[in-house]
């Protein structure tokens, strides 16, 4: 598979959050502020890259009948390590993300990528896919977090910018609104990309 294609797939064409609609639970729950969203994105991306690589290395040793529990054990190992490291060095972020850190284990992006990609592709491709899917996840969360923090709290990264705070955007319904609108825009962007290819006669 071409590297450029993996990169574009991960970030835009198959953006895990806005196109595949995977991992929407943490997306809606933690994106009330940009810093939380970035923290969650980086933690999940780290786990995704590590688990994709390790599972791809081990793919010959993984028995087909128990591949899911096998992958889950590896993913859970990385998540627990990330959880302990976060609690030790960024306790404020650990407090803010709460239950959603251990829940990275069941983030369907990570298991989905392990199952759909890492078990079938080479180690380097899996690593690349992990990097760009992770990047797609971080970008998606950061976008949601930035929009919701600016509109819902009138601040960005905790700094007051003086715009009025529309509280609903920091709450769950606002999360759904922002999610829907950004997902629609992503769909539009992807369709434009497709159209250009059509007119070129590919």
């Amino acid at each position: 598979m071409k590297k450029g294609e993996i990169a574009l797939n991960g970030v835009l064409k198959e953006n895990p959050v806005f196109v595949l609609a995977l991992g929407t639970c943490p997306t809606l729950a933690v994106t009330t502020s940009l810093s939380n969203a970035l923290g969650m994105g980086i933690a999940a991306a780290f786990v995704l890259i590590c688990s994709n690589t390790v599972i791809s290395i081990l793919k010959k040793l993984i028995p087909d009948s128990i591949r899911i529990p096998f992958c889950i054990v590896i993913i859970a190992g990385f998540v627990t390590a990330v959880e302990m490291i976060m609690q030790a060095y960024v306790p404020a972020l650990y407090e803010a993300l709460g239950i959603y850190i251990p829940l990275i284990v069941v983030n369907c992006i990570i298991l989905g990528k392990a199952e759909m990609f890492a078990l079938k592709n080479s180690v380097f491709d899996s690593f690349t896919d992990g990097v760009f899917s992770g990047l797609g996840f971080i970008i998606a969360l950061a976008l949601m977090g930035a929009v919701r923090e600016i509109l819902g709290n009138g601040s960005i990264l905790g700094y007051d910018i003086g715009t009025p705070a529309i509280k609903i955007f920091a709450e769950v319904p606002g999360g759904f609104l922002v999610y829907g609108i950004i997902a629609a825009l992503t769909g539009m962007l992807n369709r434009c990309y497709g159209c250009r290819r059509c007119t070129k006669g590919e």
Partner: protein
Amino acid sequence: MFKKYFYPPIALTAVCVIIAFMLSAVNNFTKPVIEAGQSSEEDMARSELLPEADRFEEIEVEGIENLLSAYKAENGAGYVFTVKAKGFAGDIVVLTAISDGKIVGVRMTEHNETSGYGSRAADDNYDYTSQYKGVGKELEGVKIISGSTYTSRAFEKAVKTAFDAYGRVE
């Protein structure tokens, strides 16, 4: 035969054992940092509420429901009680500093209340917690937050529980 029935459990056990060992290595590394961070954070909250206290000593108070911890200032400046109560959305945790039967300071440290409504009880810029200063166990003159009755009632209940505990130790 081996590949179908024996290999999968062996492989799964092996990976579990390896992961467990790696995690215990990470745990060894992070545990001291986590513990140091936690105790200093709680200590800081307590000394902010009760500035006269030099150091705190944890004490045992039996038979008080919802009391999470009780600390006594070593120089006798007062007590700080950590109490939980059922708020509007899940439990809230309130620290109450009491000296000579009067409140010195209160603070809601953990909550999941509606942002912009119940969350005002945790906001130092909002005049809710400041009205508790100096009141006794009947909470005379403490007003609830308009629009956040559940949160305010839970807060009052937590403070009253702290007074119950204070009654046991003083």
